[in-house]
């Protein structure tokens, strides 16, 4: 006959123990093992990364950076802008530039009925 070395703990006591354990380690006490789907909440939020894919919205544009760095004895060269301005002046010289904006609004042509 095998002698009983120790008394097996009762179920109620075991439950109490698990409850205490949950309290200590800050886990939810879930004796019925229901699906609580806590992993949905446990996952880190990724909205910030996802919304910043195309670069942060408040990132300064090229023009803004150039404006910041504009000092009398230091000039940054924006090649694209320079090219555009040169092109516009050349077109103006040849009389091919864009027409000037009208100050007074033009009256819309009224529809004539036959």
């Amino acid at each position, binding site marked *: 006959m095998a002698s009983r070395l120790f008394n097996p703990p009762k179920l109620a006591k075991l439950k109490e123990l698990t409850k205490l354990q949950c309290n200590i380690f800050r886990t939810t006490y*879930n004796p019925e093992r*229901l*699906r*609580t*789907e*806590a992993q*949905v*909440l446990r996952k880190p*939020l*990724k*909205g*910030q990364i*996802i*919304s910043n*894919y*195309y*670069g*942060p*919205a*408040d*990132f300064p*544009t090229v023009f803004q950076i150039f404006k910041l760095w504009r000092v009398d004895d230091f000039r940054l060269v924006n090649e694209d802008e320079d090219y555009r301005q040169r092109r516009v002046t050349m077109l103006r010289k040849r009389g091919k530039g864009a027409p000037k904006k009208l100050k007074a609004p033009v009256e819309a042509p009224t529809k004539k009925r036959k």
Partner: protein
Amino acid sequence: MSELIKVVKASRPLKRFPQPVSLPTGFVNTRILRDNFKRQMAAEHEVTSKALKFIARNAALPQKMRLEAQIQLTAMPNYTRMNQVRDRCLESGTAKKIIKPFRVGRYQFRLMAKEGEFPGVKKGVW
């Protein structure tokens, strides 16, 4: 960012999208605009949709509450869902063959790598 949204709102009524969003800083394309909108909406609604998902799937909660949460979740517009966003090329806007760490398409990647835009990336020769 909220200030920028205000500016966008004031400048023109964005009838294009249901909610005003900030514009992307780089290359802009219709499809990029659309994707950008979806991204911002998804980020905005992330917490609510997660909470609703948690309630709907939690077996410990009453059945009625779960059902209501599920209905609310399905009633949310499509653009608030995370799975609607798709990575696009920052340079050209294509959605195919994106090299994810660099966020550009394969051809743009080749051009930019040849230009030396990505430090440490060089052509394999053996």
